[in-house]
Each structure stands twice: as C-alpha cells, then as structure tokens.
C-alpha cells in the first residue's frame, strides 16, 4: 500500500498505541456486560434489543476508530475510540460487582461523550479547527464536561442521591458530600447537554448549507450522524429533566437509549465509509505509481485525484520553468484561474513549483490532497509533468514551423501582389506608350523608328507574359481569391501532364490548409513527371476536420526522399502524409 509521506507519520510503535488501546477498550466493553443479571444496572440488562444496540454501538465506534487511525493517523481515529469507550463506560458504572475504583473512573468519563462528538464533528476531517469558532466550541464542550465530571466526583455521594440508579454505592474520589451542589451540577449537566447539542446541530446545518457540493458529499456521512447523536443526547437530557429518576423499563427512556445507540452506530458507519474511501484512494494512487511503467494515459493523475477527493472540477496544471507557463497533461497551455469556491494547492519539489491543483475550497479536499500527493504520487506527478513538457515543446515546435510556413506564404503572396501592382502595371504603361509612339512614328512616315518601336513593343509583351507566369508561380492569386478548386483547375490547364481534378470539392477552407494542399498537388505532379507518369488524378474532400488530398498516378516506383519537404510542410500544420507506390495521401487540419 502506498503511504502518504507528506503528512508526519508517528513512529511505528506509537502507531499501534491507539489500536492497542482500542483492543483493551473493546475487551472492557464486552467484560462490562459479561455475566448480566440483577447486579447490572444498565440498559443492556433491561432487554435483548438494548443489549445488542449497546454492544454494537460501543464496539463499532472503537473498532472503526482503530481502523481509521491505521489508515490515516490523526485525531478522528483517537476521538472515535474514545467515544466508543466513553459510551461503554456507562456499563462499568452500572456493574455492581466491579471494583469501586473502576466504577468511579467510568463515572468520571461518561459526561465527556457529547464533548468528544462535538470535537470530532467540528474538527472533521482534518483534525485542525477550520470552522469559525470551532476551537471555542470544542473548549466550551470540554470545559462543561470537566466541570460536571470533576465536580460530581468531588461532591456527589451516590448514597445521598435520591435519583440514583446505575451506581448508588461507589465514588472513590469523594472529598466532601454535598447534596445541593451535586443536584445543581446534575441540572447543569442536563441543561448544558441541551445547549451544546443544540449548538452542534445548528453548526452542522450552517456548514452543510454553505458547503460546496463536493465538500457536502464528502462530509455528510459523518456530520449528519454526529448531529443525530447530538439530537439524541438532547432528547436524553430533556427526558431526564422531566423524569429525574432514570428507569430503563419506562418507554421514553428505552426509546431514547435505542436512538442514542443507533445514532452512534450511524456515526461509526460514516467513519468507516471514510476509512474505506481513503483506502481505495490510496490503492488507486498506488496503482497509478505502478502504472508508470506501462505509460498511463495523460490526465490519469487528475482523474485519480478528482475521484479520490470527490471533486469533478479538480484540475492539475504543470508548471514549466523554461517557457514560464502552466500546461495540462496533454501539454496544452492553460491558465488555471480558481473560481470563488475553489482553492489552489501548489505541489513543490525542493522548493521549486512543480504543479498546482485547482480544487474545491472545502477543507476535506485540501487536506486529502496534501496527504494523497505523497511519495507514490510524486513519481506520477513528475512523470506526467515531464511528458506534458515534451508534448508542450512538440506543440510549440509545430506551431513555430506553422508560423514559418504561414510567414513564407504571406511573403510570397505579397511578392505576387507587388509584381502585379507594381512592375506589371508599369510594363503595361510602357507598352501603351510604345504603341502611341508607334502610331506617331507611323503617321510621320519614320519607318526605322517604327520598326524599332515594334520590336520594343513585342519585347514588352513578352516581358508581361513572363512576369505574369512568374507571379503565378510565386503565389497563385486565384488560390486566395477563389479557393483550392479553381486554383487546381487553373493549374490543371497548364500542368505538364494530364491532371484529373474532377473530384475536387468546390468550397473554401483555411488559406493555410488550402496553400499546403495546393503545394502538395503541384509537388506530387512534379514527382509524377520525374517518375514518367502519364497522368495524376487528385481528389480533395474534408474528413473529420482534415482536408484530405488523395493523389494517384501511373508512374514508376516512388522515392520517398523526393517528398521530404512536402512531409515537412504538411507536418508543420499538424497534418500527415502517407506515400505509397502509386498513391499519395495528405491529411491537413483545416479547423
């Protein structure tokens, strides 16, 4: 199993202290109820269902706490074990045969049940107080419980308690019996239960109401049962305020006890669910590390993290030091901007930024990320980042090639325009002037000058034709003006061999793609001529975002080396070339 190395792990021995304590606690739970009979003044002794509910609640809490601690060492596991033990302490209190000291200690523990639940809920799941006033709330709950526990231990003599039921004989800590103070403390205990329980329910409701969906999903299994426990404890206190003499065979008491046990069991189940989820996440992350050898798909880390913290919107962005930018797992440039309910966790290595994770602001996601991105994930993060960087550089290179090609195309187009608008216009003007001069010479009967002017005019006409062909060769204006179809048809009219363009779709595409396709055809024709072909047929169509140019000819065997620059040109646009003996196929992205 992969360890989460980024959170401090206790030493191996200390790690087993909590489970060992839990084992002792569980043993004492069973021992407390062993040999049931009239000497046992507990709910468990009153009925079989109560007995089962009592045992289940206590053992579930303790064992889940131990497992939780093993899976993720921290306060929640300890608290769960303590809650289970405190719950079961009531059974020791009511065990008449137990040593007085044991019963007295158990009595000292019981008032802390609600405080422990408050602690677990308010600090769930990070073990750090992140709710507003959580610290105050927890201290208040513990303070109240301490006052009650210590006060009653010092002044309450069970013998003088008219409402005593569980333990009417032993208090090893008694200093001075004071019935009035003891009664006042009991009233304080009940009322404070109502207040603290009510506050916890309110706090949970407030938290769930404003939590993001991801945070809510993650915390509901624990927070709702915790609130239920609080409600049950409030109910218990209310019943005791009405009927001070506790009696397990009276309906209200029986019902309240069963509800309390059920709520506690639900809390244990909620904790168990969290523990199992953490284990599954660990396994997934562990598998991720193992998958490194078999080259996992890019983005796997993001998927695993998103699943493990239950946040669909989670994004991982890798930082590239060179180009100073973030890229995703595919190497695409991204600009991770967290929304209002998102936070950013930075993954660093030797104080250098490696990646950031944009995730739900909920404390659970933040905490889990810190623990999940541990030693095992480190390899996955590095691997994905390296690959993202390679992909980014490849894309960067391709984009740079595409820019070079586009700039060269633009330059050629500009040259063609300059020739048309400049040199050609001037030559036309010269020709026109020559014709006028010729007419004038003719009317003056100057035959020698007329013959010279005629030769000059012929030369000018030839120059114009050559200039037009040159300009067309540099860049066919028709390509930009009318598109690939007309340009290829024009080219076919002057091609050095039979060029069949019947299967060229007449529509417009991106000029860069059209230019590349045009060059492919022209070069393929030149190649076909070299291989003594008698014809070339060309088909152009669009397929899945690609301009597909398929060429076929009857020439001799093709030498792929002759088409390297074509492969480069198409590749610069992110396209591909397939060259067979008689067939040539170019796939050029066209948006």
């Amino acid at each position, binding site marked *: 199993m992969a360890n989460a190395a980024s959170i401090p792990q206790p030493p191996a021995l200390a790690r087993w202290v909590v489970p060992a304590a839990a084992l002792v606690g569980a043993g004492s739970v069973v021992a407390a109820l062993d040999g049931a009979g009239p000497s046992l003044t507990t709910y468990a002794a009153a009925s079989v269902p109560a007995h089962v509910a009592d045992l289940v609640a206590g053992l579930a809490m303790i064992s889940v706490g131990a497992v939780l601690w093993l899976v993720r060492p921290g306060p929640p596991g300890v608290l769960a074990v303590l809650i289970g033990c405190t719950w079961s302490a009531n059974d020791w209190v009511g065990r008449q045969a137990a040593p007085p000291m044991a019963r007295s200690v158990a009595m000292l523990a019981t008032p802390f049940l609600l405080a422990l639940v408050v602690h677990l809920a308010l600090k769930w799941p990070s073990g750090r107080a992140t709710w507003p006033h959580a610290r105050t709330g927890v201290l208040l709950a513990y303070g109240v419980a301490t006052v009650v526990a210590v006060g009653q231990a010092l002044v309450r003599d069970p013998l003088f308690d008219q409402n005593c039921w569980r333990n009417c004989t032993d208090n090893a800590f008694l200093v001075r019996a004071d019935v009035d103070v003891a009664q006042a403390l009991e009233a304080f205990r009940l009322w404070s239960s109502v207040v603290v329980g009510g506050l916890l329910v309110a706090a949970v409701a407030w938290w769930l109401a404003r939590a993001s969906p991801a945070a809510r999903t993650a915390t509901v299994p624990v927070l709702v049962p915790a609130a239920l426990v609080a409600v049950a404890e409030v109910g218990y206190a209310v019943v005791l305020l009405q009927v001070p003499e506790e009696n397990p065979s009276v309906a209200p008491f029986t019902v309240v006890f069963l509800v309390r046990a059920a709520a506690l069991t639900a809390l244990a189940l909620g904790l168990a669910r969290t523990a199992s989820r953490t284990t599954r996440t660990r396994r997934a992350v562990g598998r991720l590390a193992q998958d490194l050898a078999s080259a996992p798909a890019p983005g796997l880390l993001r998927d695993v993290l998103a699943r493990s913290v239950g946040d669909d919107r989670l994004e991982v962005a890798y930082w590239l030091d060179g180009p100073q930018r973030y890229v995703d797992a595919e190497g695409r440039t991204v600009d991770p901007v967290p929304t209002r309910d998102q936070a950013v966790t930075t993954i660093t290595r030797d104080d250098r930024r490696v990646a950031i994770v944009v995730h739900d602001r909920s404390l659970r996601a933040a905490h889990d990320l810190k623990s999940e991105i541990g030693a095992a994930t480190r390899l996955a993060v590095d691997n994905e980042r390296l690959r993202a960087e390679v992909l980014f550089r490849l894309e960067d290179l391709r984009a740079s090639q595409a820019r070079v090609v586009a700039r060269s195309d633009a330059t050629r187009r500009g040259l063609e325009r300059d020739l048309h608008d400049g040199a050609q216009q001037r030559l*036309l003007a010269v020709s026109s002037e*020559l*014709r*006028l001069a010729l007419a004038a010479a003719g009317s003056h009967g100057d035959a020698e000058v007329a013959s010279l002017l005629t030769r000059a005019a012929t030369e000018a006409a030839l120059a*114009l*034709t050559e200039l*037009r062909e040159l300009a067309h060769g540099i860049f066919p*204006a028709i390509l930009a003006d009318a598109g690939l179809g*007309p340009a290829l048809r024009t080219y076919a*009219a002057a091609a050095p061999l039979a060029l069949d363009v019947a299967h060229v779709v007449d529509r417009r595409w991106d000029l860069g793609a059209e230019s590349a396709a045009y060059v492919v055809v022209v070069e393929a024709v030149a190649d076909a001529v070299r291989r003594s072909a008698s014809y070339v047929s060309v088909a152009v169509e669009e397929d899945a975002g690609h301009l597909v140019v398929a060429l076929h000819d009857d020439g001799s065997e093709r030498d792929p080396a002759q088409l390297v620059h074509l492969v480069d040109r198409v590749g610069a646009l992110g396209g591909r070339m397939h060259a067979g003996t008689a067939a040539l196929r170019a796939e050029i992205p066209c948006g």
Partner: protein
Amino acid sequence: MRVVIADDAVLIREGIASLLRASGAEVVGQAGDAEELMREIRRHQPDVAVVDIKMPPTLTDEGLVAAQRIREEQPGVGVLVLSQYLEATYAMRLVSDHPEKVGYLLKERIFNGEVLLDAVQRVHEGETVVDPTIISMLFGRRRRLDPLAVVSPREREVLALVAEGLSNKAIASRLTVTERTVEAHVTQIFAKLHLSESPDAHRRVLAVLTFLRG
C-alpha cells in the same frame, strides 16, 4: 461609341483612353474605383464600360463585382473587364451571371488598339468576349482521355471561336465560310461532345467553357 474607363492607375487609364480615342471612340468618363465608376455610369449612360478587375480597396475582384452590378442595374451598358489573371474561373464567373454584353480580356491587350476596340465593339453589339489566350490554355490542357479527340481539327477551330464568344456570323466571316456551314459545324460538335445545343449564343459560351474545364 461612348465609353467610361475604370482603373485605379491613372497612367493605364490615360493609355486606354488615348488608344480608344485614336480608334474613334468617345471617352465620356474615367473612374478610379467601383463607387466612382457607378456614379460615372449613372451620369453618362455610356455604351460600354471598360473596367479593371483589380480596384481599391482589396485590389482583388472589385471589377468583377462592379461588372455584375452594372449589368443588373444598367442592362443597356456593356462591360469589358480587363484582367491580369489568366484565369478561366473569373471569365466563367462573369459570363455565367449575365452572358450577353460582357467581356473578359487580358490586360496586355490594351496596347493593341485594334483588339481592344474590337472587343469593346463586340460587347457593345451584345456579344460575349472571352480572351483567346484563356481558350487556347483550356484547349492546350493535357488530359488522360482527350474528350476533344472526337472532333476534327476544323471543328476544333470552330469550337474555340464559339468559346471566345463569337456569333455564328462572326465565325463565318473569320473562317471565310458561310453562316450555314458554321451552323452545321456547331450542331455536329455539340452532338459529338454531348452538349445540349443552346439556341442562345451567349449561353453556349458558358457550356463550352464548362466542358473544356471539366
């Protein structure tokens, strides 16, 4: 014959004007862009407009667009488009919308007064004019299976003149044969090439151009 000239280069405009004047035409207006051209045409109601294909602002095909507009708004005005492009595509675009009273001539013809005036004259008379260089380029195209193999050299000659936009009568005088002979040739050629013979002399230009390009 009254003519309006449009070209953004003053030098060329003046050259064309002096050639046409020398040949006896009356140049009633000149324009540097399409908007000015439309104003001149509305004002002077000329017989023919001689329009450069490249005019501001994009210097691509404003002349073609203007030609189509003139033919739509002023059916009485013929349009001769002058172009540096040896492109059948543009010529076909011109004749496909309004086949009569339009012409597509390579710009280098402008220093040959006779050819230019002849083209202007033909457009004025309602004929279609397609530059012979474009036709010979289309005829010169190499093909795997030459669809023109079925026609005789004489028929080829006739077909080329049909493609240039000449009427039967003009072809007859060019080849010094009777108009009846030309008619017979044309019928024969169209049958051999599986072209539906259109009685309209203008439509048949487009049909032949399309066939030659296919």
